[in-house]
């Protein structure tokens, strides 16, 4: 009896094993296709940027750029002040990111930990404004900035976003609330003030969320087009997005100019991302948890 009963179960297990192996390879195949699709545009753009103008149109996107040439980049730089665009963008994005980190930490701490009159209405006022689409604020911002005579300056780009966003404050406040209050109470008994607590306890324990905030802010600012398009108009403060949009308008079919420009615009963020990827991937998911 026993041996007979054993046989079918064994074969069933073997069948299940094969099935599981097949399923695992299907999963790998699916994921690999996804991964390839995710990086192909980056690789093809970078590749095309190094192809000589003559072969850029005649060869396929996946044909490697051999021999590689810098001539497209030289042509691009001679036409356009790409270095200027990048410096302007880095200054704007860097200032906004730094400002948001500091001011958001301050506000999030007050909302998370300090008991003060007006806290709840103020906090919910911030939250309510998260729903406002950006475009709603932009025409009035243009009005405000032109009244202050700031149109076409760095300040017009920086001021509206440097003080933080409701979303950022919400994000960091939620994280601060998960830090045990006992730590802080103990420090207060030892005579630590708010400044010390922020510097010695809250900030060191909140590195993942602050890294997330910094990444999201920097990426969003680096990539943002609409407000810079409205608020700037001269080479003195134009950012990369506006520059590339202008290039596209001017050199619509000259890929040997456009593709290197796209590569130059994309790569700084990829480089930053690869440096911090471990933090970023883990912490992006944090932003979805309430």
């Amino acid at each position, binding site marked *: 009896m026993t041996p007979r009963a054993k046989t079918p179960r064994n074969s069933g297990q073997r069948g299940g094993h094969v099935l599981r192996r097949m399923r695992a390879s299907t*999963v790998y195949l699916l994921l690999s296709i996804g991964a390839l699709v995710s990086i192909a545009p980056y690789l093809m753009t970078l590749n095309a940027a190094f192809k000589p103008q003559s072969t850029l149109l005649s060869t396929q996107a996946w044909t490697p750029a051999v021999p590689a040439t810098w001539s497209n980049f030289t042509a691009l730089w001679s036409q356009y002040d790409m270095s200027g665009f990048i410096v302007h963008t880095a200054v704007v994005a860097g200032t906004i990111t730094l400002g948001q980190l500091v001011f958001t930490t301050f506000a999030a701490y007050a909302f998370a930990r300090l008991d003060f*009159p007006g806290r709840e209405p103020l906090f919910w006022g911030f939250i309510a404004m998260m*729903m406002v689409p950006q*475009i*709603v604020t932009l025409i009035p911002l243009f009005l405000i900035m032109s009244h202050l005579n700031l149109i076409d300056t760095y300040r017009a780009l920086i001021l509206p*976003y440097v003080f933080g966003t409701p979303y950022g404050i919400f994000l960091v406040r939620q994280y601060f609330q998960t830090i045990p209050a006992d730590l802080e109470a103990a420090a207060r008994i030892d005579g630590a003030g708010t400044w010390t607590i922020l510097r010695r306890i809250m900030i060191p324990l909140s590195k993942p969320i602050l890294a997330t905030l910094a990444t999201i802010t920097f990426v969003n600012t*680096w990539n943002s087009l609409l407000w810079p398009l*409205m608020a700037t108009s001269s080479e003195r403060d134009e950012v990369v997005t506006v520059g590339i949009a202008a290039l596209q308008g001017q050199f619509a079919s000259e890929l040997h100019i456009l593709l290197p420009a796209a590569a130059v*615009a994309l790569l700084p963020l990829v480089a930053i991302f690869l440096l911090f990827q471990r933090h970023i991937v883990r912490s992006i998911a944090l932003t979805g948890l309430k």
Partner: protein
Amino acid sequence: MSANIAVTGAASRSRAARRNRRTRTTLEAYLLIAPSLFGFVAFLVAPVVIVFVLSLFSWNLIGSPQFVGLANYRRMFTDSQSWHALLNTAYYVVLNIPMQTVLALLLALALNRKMRGSKLFRVVFVLPWMAMPVALGVIWNWFFDPRSGIIDHVISLLGFTGPNWLTSTTWAMPVIASVNVWQYTGYTMLFLLAGLQAIPQQVYEAASLDGVNAVQRLFRITLPLLRPALFFVLVTNVIGSFQQFDTVFVMTQGGPGQSTTTMNYYIYQQAFQLFHAGYAATLSILLFAVILVVTFVQFRYFRKRTIYDFS
């Protein structure tokens, strides 16, 4: 007697100290939120107030605004282009969200297991998220170019000829949507994966004891339990998609005809190309209202269902 006095003295002193500490905390709190509060009021609350005021004015961005009453609103309701732009935006959202969410879900389900290379896959899938939409527009223009583009080349290898994607009123919008699907699928996947990983293993163990098959497991267990994460990505992605501008600006400038003119693009045109800034303000209020309604509907739909909480 003297002990009594000492006690009341100490009590009033500590009450005063407490009041002092409260005042100090309040002062400190307002100092801490002062910069954010200033930015919030000056660059978010004030603009929202101004936009409603501006919608009652005619303004060419340079001169001083002229009061016109409700003329901009009357114009909005009779302007067929504004409805066209709204429909285009809705069409873009409908093309974009289901495809992106289903693909993200498939990837998340595939990654939700112990396997080699899962961290690497996650990093690679997030790479598109940070790409500059303007640069992507340039790259997609190249991909979909009828002469040198990779898409038409692949199609011709299969023995077909591609349509002129970006000059076709049928295909231009799906191409715009494909940029967005490429960009945000991996990012959306991360949230869904986090949601999947929050589902306790015991639920699946119990189900397998009851002889539940794979299809039932997906539709009866995984998806209902993933509802909070799905809700989050749907609400945020829908709000984002309603604001499409960059890709349209670089790839099609709203054309051919008006076929890819989204609300944001139409508002930009009205304000900065036609200098009807007051009318543009009115249109932005319409977009705001539409987003509010759509979000409200999503909240209603999702709240009707049970939410499972394992925390």
